[in-house]
């Protein structure tokens, strides 16, 4: 698996361990254990060079604690407003959750492959995300909104465990207003919940898809993506037109450490976004 890898302008190919200093400009608590951090480069020359494509991630580094791969969740057309949405789960992400506005982090990136939305002009798009999987596809939503007329029908199918776990709830209306048909579902409702109950793949039933015109982007727990893929295949969507974002342990993001391997792929440099056609031989192999 050897795609043409473009080294980002803010990564020095000859010394890719070098980091950039960033400061936290704003923090927004999204749900109980998830917050979005807006980061600002200390060096304005670096800020100017910084660009990313939807789907890419940065390595966020807290010295003495460690580094984590975190997707960029903001608008690719406004790279100066750089957001990461992070769930506190372990040592690095919990330490990040204790940081405050003005604190410094170090960052390397951006790394990884893109959701190839620029190739989807004139086509219909289904975005199917679960849980925190909405963060890595939000740049796609921005990208489409910024040039909505260039795309056909666009659906967003998003689900979380409970209404309290839904991300970015304040933005759904805005997405709907730009003609992104947004369907939200939860696994388990509560007293106030009047929306859908069920898993994301079950939302496919209600879509009238033109199989040849449709491109599907899915991101979330692997099990959810597998069911989304099954729905797509049932609707005769070409495996080349289904895009998945894979997650594996990441230690370097450079293809050096070996941890992120998934069959022939290094998720860090060949991915994280792959076509289902690429992943098909491995996705259903247990423990691979």
């Amino acid at each position, binding site marked *: 698996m050897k795609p043409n890898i473009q080294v980002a302008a803010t990564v020095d190919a000859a010394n890719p361990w070098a980091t950039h200093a960033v400061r936290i400009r704003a923090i927004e608590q999204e749900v109980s254990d998830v917050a979005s951090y807006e980061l600002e480069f200390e060096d304005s020359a670096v800020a100017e060079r910084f660009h990313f494509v939807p789907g890419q991630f940065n390595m966020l580094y807290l010295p003495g604690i460690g580094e984590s791969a975190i997707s960029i969740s903001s608008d690719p057309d406004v790279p100066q407003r750089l957001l990461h949405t992070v769930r506190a789960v372990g040592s690095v992400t919990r330490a990040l959750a204790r940081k405050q506005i003005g604190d410094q982090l*170090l960052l390397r990136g951006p790394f990884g492959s893109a959701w190839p939305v620029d190739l989807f002009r004139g086509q219909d798009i289904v975005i199917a995300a679960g849980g925190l999987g909405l963060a890595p596809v939000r740049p796609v939503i921005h990208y489409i909104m910024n040039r909505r007329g260039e795309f056909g029908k666009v659906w967003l199918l998003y689900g979380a465990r409970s209404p309290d776990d839904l991300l970015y709830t304040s933005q759904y209306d805005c997405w709907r207003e730009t003609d992104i048909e947004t369907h939200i579902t939860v696994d388990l409702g509560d007293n106030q919940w009047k929306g859908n109950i069920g898993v994301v793949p079950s939302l496919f039933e209600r879509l009238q898809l033109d199989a040849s015109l449709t491109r599907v982007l899915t991101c979330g727990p692997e099990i959810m993506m597998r069911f989304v893929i099954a729905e797509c295949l049932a609707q005769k969507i070409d495996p080349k037109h289904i895009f998945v974002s894979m997650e594996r342990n990441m230690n370097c993001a450079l293809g050096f450490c*070996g941890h992120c391997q998934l069959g022939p792929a*290094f998720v860090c440099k060949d991915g994280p976004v792959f076509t289902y056609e690429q992943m098909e031989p491995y996705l259903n192999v247990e423990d691979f």
Partner: protein
Amino acid sequence: MQGLIDALKEDGYRVIGPQVADGAVVYDELESLEQLPLGVIDEQDGGVYRLARRQDAGYFDHVVGPHSLKRYLFPPQETLQQLQLKDGGWRVEPQQFDEPPLAVIGPRSCDLHAMAIQDRVFLEGPYVDPGYRARREGLFVVSVQCRRAAATCFCHSMKTGPRADHGFDLALSELDDCFAIEVGSERGGRILAAVDGWKPGAPTIVDRANDQSSQLERSMEQRSTTEAAPGAPKLRQLDTQDLRDLLLNNLDHPRWEQVADRCLACANCTMVCPTCFCSSVSEVSDLTNEHVRRERTWTSCFTAEHSFLTSGVVRNSTAARYRQWLTHKLSTWIDQFDSSGCVGCGRCITWCPVGIDLTEEVAAIRETTK
């Protein structure tokens, strides 16, 4: 020989060469000819490594030991960065590359191929590892042409030996009464010219050296038609035909479970393998947490940490980890780097405490596949 060691030192190299320590031939700092393992051979088999003395053995009739060039180019532990907290901000001190360059005497053809494979990982991808590059550019290789193979060697199957034809600065062939030296690079020629007492030999010496290599090659090729002597270790070989697909089409083969019953998941095979490159970066900080070192150490796909995700470990059984190791070595490596990840050095067979032999595992899968 001593003249060569001296000429390299004179030129500023730290010279490394094979010597006996703790019952094995390993690489270490070389001062003099006397440290070389003259008269020593190594007997190797699955889980077996034994040194023996042999009357007619020369300086280099041992084959490969547990060490390889990997430990010098991609050391087991390395500091990538140091950081210092100052006025609420981190100052990053980049890696220093001021160590003297190394000259290593002794790598075999398989080792040179292994180095070329690691070059692809650390130098030839989209990103370059600066430490590896600094050490690699400084490295001077004095390769040795094998005239003996261990039972565990199968470089002939992997097309990586036994004769080294490129990738060295100098290559030595040990003959009964002298060394034939082949020059592989311009600086190799320069060093050779500076060796005290060296003089060009008769062309017949070159012929004798070549004959010696061809003889070994022929005897290895004959492994497919000859049986090992009774009681002697099996002479390894590996049928590489369609090997990539053979393994990837058998990801659910029962053999993975069977080998896992014997495998201790000790990771020895990945540590001694000259091509395995997996590593982890960890943080080492002082008590005040104001000074941090980032250390890279070797790791292995046989550990749980290797595939850890907070949602669970991906490869949660020894069977899944052995399968990762073997399919990476022999199959997916080809997709990633256009070559096998195995050079047939046999180290993983020898240093496996229970003697698991990848050539046997592949043969077993092949036999039961139509």
